[in-house]
């Protein structure tokens, strides 16, 4: 359950190795937390992360195999979770890959991978989690989208499109969940300096996983529909999304 002070007892992180996801856990796992589940593909790497998390937070941390691309398994995954741990109080959807645009251009299978990992997989899982939370009539969902979902760039067109798909699905889910007792927040960070973006030149208004985590924590105490990190990006993209394409191309060059 969520406590009166806005803490969560049972937390599941989809994309259990995600740097931003783990920063969010660092912020959201409190003494009230009893169970944390890391859902990820690489269970071995997950075990190390779990041990570290257990040592720092002193709560039960488990790693459960989850592959975003196995679309037909998500339903069963949630059912198994319920049997093992009961209600999900907070679900963080942080699964995703950046993908390589050149490779995507050359190989349609690479596009399929990005779409499955960033869009289809997370969307199907969100749907399964939302259905469960609707039954339990409480719960919080955090969906990590991206500003890349707002306007497509040549440099990461496939990533942007996949996040746009997830973002749109999450918006629809938000509507479906209205007044159900379940709340979903969409988080749209800008360029996050971290493992995923290593070697890339940082964009303006770049941020860090810790800042994203802080913004997520604050959003869980209020209940906004969409959170931009940093907040100014809301206004920056209000302009950027309506820029004529020739100007847009020069801006993002």
């Amino acid at each position, binding site marked *: *359950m*969520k*406590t*009166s*002070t*806005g*803490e969560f*007892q049972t937390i599941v992180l989809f994309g259990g190795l995600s740097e931003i996801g783990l920063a969010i856990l660092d912020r959201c796992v*409190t*003494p*009230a937390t*009893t169970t944390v589940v890391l859902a990820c593909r690489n269970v071995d790497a997950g075990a190390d992360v779990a041990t570290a998390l257990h040592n720092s937070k002193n709560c039960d941390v488990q790693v459960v195999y989850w592959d975003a691309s196995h679309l037909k398994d998500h339903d069963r995954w949630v059912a198994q979770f319920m049997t093992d741990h*009961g*209600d999900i109080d907070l679900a963080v959807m942080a699964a995703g890959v950046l993908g390589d645009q050149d490779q995507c251009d050359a190989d349609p299978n690479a596009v399929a991978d990005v779409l499955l990992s960033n869009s289809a997989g997370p969307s199907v899982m969100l749907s399964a989690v939302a259905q469960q939370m609707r*039954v*339990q*009539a*409480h719960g919080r969902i955090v969906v990590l989208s991206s500003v890349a979902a707002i306007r497509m760039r040549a440099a990461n067109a496939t990533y942007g499109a996949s996040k746009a798909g997830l973002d749109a699905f999450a918006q629809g889910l938000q509507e479906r969940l209205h*007044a*159900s*007792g379940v709340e979903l927040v969409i988080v749209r960070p800008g360029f996050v300096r971290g493992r995923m973006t290593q070697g890339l030149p940082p964009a303006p208004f770049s941020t860090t996983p810790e800042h994203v985590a802080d913004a997520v924590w604050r959003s869980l*105490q209020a209940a906004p529909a969409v959170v931009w990190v940093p907040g100014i990006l809301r206004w920056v993209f209000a302009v950027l999304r309506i820029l004529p394409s020739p100007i847009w191309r020069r801006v993002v060059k």
Partner: protein
Amino acid sequence: MSDVIVAGWGRTNPARSSLYECANQQSVELVISDVGERGALARGLGRSYGDAAQVSGGKLVGLTGRIISLDPTSGVVIVDAGVSIDELLRYIVPKGWFVPVTPGTRYVTIGGAIAADIHGKNHHRDGSIGAWIESLNLITAVDGFVTVSPASDPQLFWATIGGMGLTGVIMSARIKLIPIDTPLMEVTTQRHNNIDDLMEAMVSKDSDHRYSVAWVDTTVSGSRLGRGVVTWGDHASSERIRVGRGRRVRKYKASQRFSVPEFIGSRRTIRRWNAVAFSEFWFRSAPHSRADELQSIPKFFHPLDAVGNWNRLYGRRGFVQYQFVVPDDRPDVVVTALRCVARERPADFLNVLKRFGDAGDGMLSFPMRGWTLTMDLPVTDGLGQLIHHLDELVMEAGGRIYLAKDGCSSPQVVSAGYPRLNEWRSVRSRVDPDGIFQSDLSRRLEL
């Protein structure tokens, strides 16, 4: 049936469930005959502060009721669980009777009062309400409608007293009332400049009075830490108020003067500065020492009820009413807790200190001999940390927190504080093996 979103009085954790208004035994039985995985729970006036009276995704049973009978010689009243103490007082006070135990608000139902085993300012003398219940009618999951008394089924009876509604739906109760001569209270007030003096005064004078309670200031620290105002009271005798020609005054008037409108609830009105200002004012406006003041029952027992929906003043995020008790030999924990809170500087001005008498027989009853401190703390980002710290102090001292107020404690703190929890669990599994009766509280604390 209607879909509702309800929260505790602290307004912290709204939960959606279906509400079934039940007028009689049959309709309650019908509701609990078909409960899904999400459980069912009776809900009264929603005055528990945390998540005790909600069951998200489940079925809430609302009860209406009436006062069935009052024996004018013995003072035993038979009353439906859905009747509030407010309604009961309006009926019994003019007839010369008073409830044996009342909390700080009269807007609680009899069912809720029994489920939380409420205590009042007279706990040091009269115990909690469980001690005054002769028998109660309960609808359990296994046996249906049963009448339980301490003699017929002590296990189930004392599991239901303070059992947070988790043993079944309390339908009605036989309660022993206390006789009063007049509807007035004779009040003695003393103001003390620090916590040690305050506690000493309570220890030395509590036994002289039926009612006793102290307001404590958490906005000051250092040598003034825990300064406060202690009030003692007794029901005034008719000789004392000298009514002409032996006539007895029995008028009872209790009204709500003002109600906080809904729009106020979107922002927090209670801030640090006005909490400090209020505390300063409250302390200074109290007399250093005053005896024999006459007060009405509402003024003495239910001052906050004069303002309707006052919980909205805490804004959208709500507040936590944190109440703990520590054994008599650990008054130091009260002082440490006050110091912690004073250091954190929350917007807190409503704090109540009280010395409990002996514990009752309820397995999950809160009161035990010792000191109980209650604080109204608005939810802010740092509150979770503060409360975990307080929880640890209480646990270490062998104390416990009050389930009817709780919304953020942990299973460990509760199982450490309630040594009879396992005994209670075995009764619960006897009368409700499938776990039909649940609450968000029971899920959170793994009761």
